[in-house]
């Protein structure tokens, strides 16, 4: 830690000198960081400045050097995870039936890189509602709405029913939005669904899928979109299929499989210890 601090201090001195940063500019930057921290926004500033994606790219490279390949692509965690969502075996319903938007069924399997199903893996899933808000953040929702942990069955299968999430923007007037505006950037994210996928002996996977067709799909302010994390969205309007699903209106369906790599000596850990919101 001391080495990191010394290195950063040295590089910052070089940058201040190279850029001829004025006293006012320097202290404005310090004040900005302080305000963002007070507002608990650093978890938003970090992805917005591409740092969280950069950390992912470094981890990709470290795994490549350790000989690891074939796992599902990772992407950013973002700042809105809440631990301790209800644990369900095999199949879950994520929504609390208060959101009238499009119904979404998502299913798939967890495999190892040889294609063997991973039974007992935990698919920890969370996403925004159709207004772009997460439970425990923003306007009140029922506890753990749109958050569950699903344990895969003996074939590695998981399945959930939920509602189609919406994309969202940085809070208006927030420190993050102010910074992005000054950089000529927007603060919008495309619709997406977050996952942690874990199983004993395997490396934790942190990832998301993006909802195909979103206006901001390839213009995510948080740089979270990766090309192989955009599964097709099937719109189901066939009457028989609707009936079979126990519904009375069309719905959307996504299939996505996860592939986990084995823990390997020499590869940095993918388990990240960072501050998370705690359910009240």
């Amino acid at each position, binding site marked *: 830690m001391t080495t990191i601090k010394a290195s950063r201090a040295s590089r910052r001195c070089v940058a201040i000198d190279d850029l001829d940063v004025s006293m006012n500019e320097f202290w404005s930057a310090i004040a900005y960081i302080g305000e963002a921290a007070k507002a608990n926004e650093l978890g938003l500033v970090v992805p917005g*400045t591409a740092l969280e994606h950069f950390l992912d790219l470094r981890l990709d490279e470290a795994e490549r050097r350790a000989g690891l390949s074939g796992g599902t692509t990772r992407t950013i965690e973002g700042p809105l995870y809440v631990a301790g969502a209800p644990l369900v075996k095999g199949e879950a319903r994520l929504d609390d039936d208060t959101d009238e938007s499009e119904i979404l069924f998502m299913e798939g399997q967890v495999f190892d890189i040889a294609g063997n199903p991973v039974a007992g893996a935990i698919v920890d899933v969370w996403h925004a509602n159709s207004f772009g808000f997460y439970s425990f953040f923003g306007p009140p929702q029922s506890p753990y709405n749109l958050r569950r942990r699903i344990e895969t069955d003996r074939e590695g299968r998981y399945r959930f029913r939920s509602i189609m999430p919406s994309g969202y923007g940085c809070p208006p007037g927030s420190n993050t939005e102010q910074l992005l505006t000054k*950089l000529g950037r927007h603060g919008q994210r495309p619709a997406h669904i977050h996952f942690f996928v874990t199983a004993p002996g395997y490396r934790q996977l942190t990832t998301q899928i993006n909802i195909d067709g979103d206006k901001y799909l390839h213009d995510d302010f948080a740089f979270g979109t990766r090309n192989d994390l955009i599964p097709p969205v099937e719109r189901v309007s066939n009457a028989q299929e609707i009936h079979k699903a126990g519904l009375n209106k069309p719905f959307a369906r996504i299939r996505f499989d996860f592939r986990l790599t084995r823990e390997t000596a020499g590869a940095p850990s993918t388990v990240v210890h960072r501050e998370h919101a705690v359910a009240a």
Partner: protein
Amino acid sequence: MPANLIDKAAIKALAAKAAGLDNDQGEPRLKEVRRH
């Protein structure tokens, strides 16, 4: 172990986009600083 990614073209492009160098809006001085 350092990943030595900084000089790769993709990382430079990422940093430039993050700093808003791919658009002509915003504050040029802040963009210059962010690019570093």
